[in-house]
């Protein structure tokens, strides 16, 4: 009987993953090349952000945390309070014409080396 239920669970599981596909790839800017679908991009904010996330869009540049490849990002939606130049952030979206266009509201910051919940999504 247990074997039957284990099989059932596995079946549900496989069904889901086959329909929904695997997860969302988590990439650094240097890995973006060749990925055209929705991905999760993680990097460090460099330069000065400009624009308005609640209007036309916030523009900033993400660079590899340990590297030099940088990519411009366009983001709309809630901006976490901890967001600033030099912070490590994660954002979901797609690369379009050399600009990473973010899915609204998916920008999240990592709290620097302290045990603290800090999120906005």
């Amino acid at each position: 009987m247990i074997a039957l239920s284990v099989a059932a669970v596995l079946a549900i599981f496989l069904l889901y993953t086959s329909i929904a596909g695997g997860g969302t790839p988590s990439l650094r800017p240097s890995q973006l090349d060749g990925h055209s679908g929705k991905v999760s991009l993680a990097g460090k904010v460099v330069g000065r952000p400009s624009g308005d996330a609640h209007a036309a869009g916030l523009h900033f540049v993400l660079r590899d945390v340990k590297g030099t490849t940088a990519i411009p990002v366009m983001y709309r939606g809630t901006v976490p309070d901890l967001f600033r130049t030099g912070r490590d952030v994660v954002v979901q979206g797609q690369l379009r014409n050399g600009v990473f266009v973010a899915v609204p509201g998916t920008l999240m910051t990592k709290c620097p080396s302290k045990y603290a919940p800090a999120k906005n999504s």
Partner: protein
Amino acid sequence: MPDLGRAALATALLLLVYAAVAGTFAAHRRRRRLAASAQNALLAAFGASAVAAATLLVALARHDFSFRYVADHTSRKLPLGYTLTAFWGGQEGSLLLWLVVLCGYGAAAVWTTRRVARDLLAWTVPVLGVIGTFFAFMLVFVASPFATQAAPADGAGLNPSLQNPYMAIHPPMLYLGYVGLTVPFAFAMGALLSRRTDERWIVATRRWTLAAWAFLGVGQLLGAHWAYVEIGWGGYYAWDPVENAALMPWLAATAFLHSVMIQEKRGMLKVWNMLLVILAFCLSLFGTFLTRSGIIQSIHSFTQSSIGPWFLGFICFVVCASLGLVFLRLPLLRSKTKLESLVSREATFLYNNLLLVALSLTILWGVVYPLVSELVRGETSTVSKPYYNFFLHTFGLPLLLLMGIGPLVAWRRASFRALGRTFLWPLAVAVVAGVILLAVGAGSSRVGVIAYTFSIFVLASIALEFVRGTRARKALGSESWPGAFTALVARNRRRYGGYVVHAAVVFLAIGVAGSSVYQTVREHRLHPGGAMTVAGTRLVFRGFEQHRAPNHQAIRAVVDVYRGGKRITTLLPGKNNYFAEQQVSNEVAIRHDYADASDLFLIADQVNRDGSVDLKALQKPLVNLIWFAGFVFVGGSLIALWPDAREERRLAARYAGALAEA
């Protein structure tokens, strides 16, 4: 002073090693005095670790910045309360808290069982000793809270988001839960090592498991409330790995609590229970490993630290050793009883177990998926809300339904005719409720309607249980209704306490369903005088207010709230800018509607230079049921935990017997 701390920790380490080594020798060679000595070592280890903890507390209170830990996590301006709670605000301190709680639980478990189950305890002590040794080892050699430095003028301060009362209660509660799961694990391994085939270990640990599970549940609810009101992104659970780290062992422990009841009543599922207790304990270790090692990308993580590999090694050791032990003792765990019917209470417990474990494992898979995908495909891939929600619905909704079905079904074998009768009322109530819900438009969410309907079914069946039981009890004697009710609950504390806990879970389910699938979210940029509407409530922005506090600058958006043309309140969402820490915190404004348990939740997303505000408003129906559920949960757990003198005597008589245990 740091030397005292280090010495105390070293003493604790030596005591725990002694408990492990001497305890093993004593249990193996049946040496009574040595076994007692090993037990005492556990007691003394608690004392030593408490001294170490006290040293750190004193250093914190004194702002002794020669302690690197104190300098890293506090500052002179920090209020005393938060200075003290900074104890567990960082890696080393929280490890020390774990050790103190572990030794405390170990000492208490030893103290309460030392007269009644000597041989079982003789093998439990070394298990506790080995586990304690790991944590003490980490504290002495890898992550010491007593590292020193040249004292700077002031400390780095505590992250503003940790400066609130939740910091005082959420981590300790979680730890009392996580660490508490060590006790049933240790006794289970002790029972296997001592080759005892009886239920002594279950009887000995029943209350410990229930208490740890309750603490873990309350700790998670506190964390959710913290996220809701302090972090303020409009939700209370984000399926973050660290949140899941507490949920997984809790689900496994829930399954364990149910399946041991079957072992007690029918003598079945011995192997399954062993596996479950190992799973719960390992998940709790894994949970704390996740939080500390930075191995999974999480917004909660501690630094990428060196303790990760150590933890991973220890977890592997525990998994291999405990599974190996179960395998070796498999012959002892055979039981003759079989499941008599797929329609019986035992069967519903079994289904409940399977669903809980399935949910726990799918969450685990989701958490480690990034690591696995990296290993297999070379590319890190993550899963998020849709994945977790799918499985929460697939496994959680049937679980909800089972909570209502289980109590109505008899043990061993339920007859269909009787089932029909007992099910009639709750089913009828649920169907009526379902129709009403669809009529008022709740059909906008299929999951929502199902969740609500199932919840009402469960609540009806629980109410019916209380009514039927009280009526049956009253028919026995000449007690009044309240008297019969109290007697009923008092004589069956575990069952009726359990029903109350089920009711709490139902309230939780209703609250979660309402505030997630039926919530309304609106975002607008408002200039002074501008207005927006959310779920029939009108919000008018009047302008900004600013004021200066000792350690921060506060800016608030003044928003008048109107319903039906009348102003019902003014809310002030905004931001605080902390000078010392150079950080901005989000300060949300919440209005509780006590009539329908809903919340109006306002976030000042962005304060703009032109005097306008980007306001995000959420209307969350029934969300306050979640917090109400927390209280009901505690109440039910207390009822179930309440010692029953008569039962204690009966159990004591059962195990005293011919064996001279004086």
